[in-house]
C-alpha cells in the first residue's frame, strides 16, 4: 500500500509530516483552567466514565487534561499557567514505531496519528513511549449509567476493553467538514469547524485549523514569538503550539 517518505509526499503535493496539515494553538494566558474542554471532549468522543476508585489507581481516561506544575522549592512555590494537554499529533511520533500490530499509524492524508481500535491488541507500548503521556487505556468495559447511555456520538467508535485510545483532533468533524465542502465543490474554509475542545472553550484559548496554509488564524498565531512546542528537543515535531505567558 501507499507508503511514502518525505520526498515523495512532497512530490504528490501532500503536506509533509514536519509541517503537518491540521494544527492547534493554545494560549496559556487565556486559559482559565475551567475544564469545559475536558467535558466537551468526553461527550464528543464517547469517553468512558472510569469512576473515582479506578482514577485513583491511575487508570483515568481523558483525551485532554489541564496540566499544571509547581515551580521552585517550598515555601517559594509558584504555579505554572494552565496547559490543556492532548495528543500533540507529532509529525514523527514516538508511539508509532513501537506498535507491534501497526494499530497506531500515521495518516498520510490528514497528517494525524491514528489509532485503529480494531487493530489494537493492547500491548500499551505506545502509551509508555509517549513523552506527553496523553494516551489512555481501556482497562475494563465501563458502565454507562442512565441516562448517559443515550448520548453516544454515532460518528465515533465505542471502544472496548483492552484497547488504547487518544485524542484524534476530532477526525470525525474533519471528515464531515471535508465531505460537506466536497459536496458543495469548495475547499474547507478556515474556522468553518472546530474540535469539541476548541468549540467549548469560553475563553477562546484553543484555536484550530490548517497549519500548512499561511493565511489561517492558527498559522498566524503559531508564528508569534510567544509560540513554543513542548519537548521540541525530542524531534517529535508536535502540531500543537503553546503561547507562553508574555
Amino acid at each position, binding site marked *: 500500500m501507499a507508503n511514502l517518505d518525505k520526498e515523495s509526499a512532497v512530490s504528490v503535493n501532500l503536506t509533509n509530516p514536519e509541517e503537518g496539515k491540521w494544527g492547534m494553538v493554545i494560549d496559556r494566558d487565556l486559559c482559565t483552567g475551567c475544564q469545559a474542554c475536558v467535558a466537551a471532549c468526553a461527550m464528543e468522543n464517547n469517553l468512558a466514565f472510569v469512576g473515582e476508585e479506578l482514577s485513583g489507581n491511575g487508570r483515568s481516561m481523558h483525551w485532554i487534561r489541564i496540566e499544571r506544575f509547581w515551580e521552585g522549592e517550598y515555601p517559594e512555590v509558584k504555579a505554572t499557567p494552565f496547559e490543556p494537554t492532548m495528543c500533540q499529533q507529532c509529525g514523527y511520533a514516538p508511539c508509532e514505531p513501537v506498535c507491534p500490530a501497526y494499530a497506531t499509524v500515521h495518516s*498520510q*492524508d490528514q497528517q494525524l496519528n491514528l489509532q485503529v*481500535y480494531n487493530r489494537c491488541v493492547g500491548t500499551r507500548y505506545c502509551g509508555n513511549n509517549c513523552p506527553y503521556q496523553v494516551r489512555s487505556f481501556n482497562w475494563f468495559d465501563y458502565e454507562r449509567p442512565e441516562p448517559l447511555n443515550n448520548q453516544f456520538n454515532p460518528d465515533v467508535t465505542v471502544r472496548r476493553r483492552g484497547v488504547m485510545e487518544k485524542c484524534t483532533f476530532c477526525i470525525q468533524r474533519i471528515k464531515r467538514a471535508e465531505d460537506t465542502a466536497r459536496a458543495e465543490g469548495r475547499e474547507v474554509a478556515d474556522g468553518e469547524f472546530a474540535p469539541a475542545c476548541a468549540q467549548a472553550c469560553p475563553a477562546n484559548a484553543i484555536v484550530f485549523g490548517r497549519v500548512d496554509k499561511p493565511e489561517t488564524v492558527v498559522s498566524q498565531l503559531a508564528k508569534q514569538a510567544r509560540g513554543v512546542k513542548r519537548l521540541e528537543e525530542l524531534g517529535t515535531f508536535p502540531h500543537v503550539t503553546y503561547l507562553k505567558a508574555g
Partner: protein
Amino acid sequence: MIKKLLSWLASPLGKIGLLILSLIVISGAVWGIGQTQTVPEQPIDFPHSLHVGLGVQCLYCHPGSLKGPVSGLPTQTKCWGCHQQIAKTKTSALLAPLVQAVENNQPIQWVPVAMVPDFVRYNHRPHIAAGLNCEDCHGDVSKMTVYENPQVLNMGWCLNCHVEQAGEDEEKLIRLTDCGTCHY
C-alpha cells in the same frame, strides 16, 4: 491419568467416541457459519422486485444516500401513501403487518442487513457523487424479493474498489486507502 485416557482413546470405543465428538464440533461450526450467511426474517416480506419493477426509484424510499452517510429505511407513512389506495392492502396476508402498524401508529422494525461493524465509518454521499450506482454494491435489487447482500461487506471489498477507482492518481489512492478514512 493421562496414560489411562490415551489407552482408552486407542480402544475401539474410544475411537467411536472421538469420532462422535468431532462430528458434534464440526456440525456446530457449520451451523454457526450458516447462521451468519442467512438473511434474517423481516417484519414484512417486502418485495423489492415488485416495487422496483413498478418503476419506483430507490431514492424515493431510501432518500438519504444523496445527502449523507445513511440511506434510511422507509416508515409506514411512505408505504401508506400508495397502499391506502390499493385494494389488495386490505386482503393480502403479506400486508397485514403494515395495516396493523398504521392502525396502531407503531413503527415497523426493519432488521438491518446491509451494515458494517461499529468501528467502520461508511458514507453513501461520496459514492453516489462519484457516479456509482446502487447496484454496484447492493446487487440487482430489482430481482430480489427480500433484500440480501450480494457479497460480504468486508475491508478487502472496500479497498479493492478504492484502489481501482484511484487508478494512477496517487493523492486519491492515499486518501482512499488511509486507515483514517474508514476507522475512527
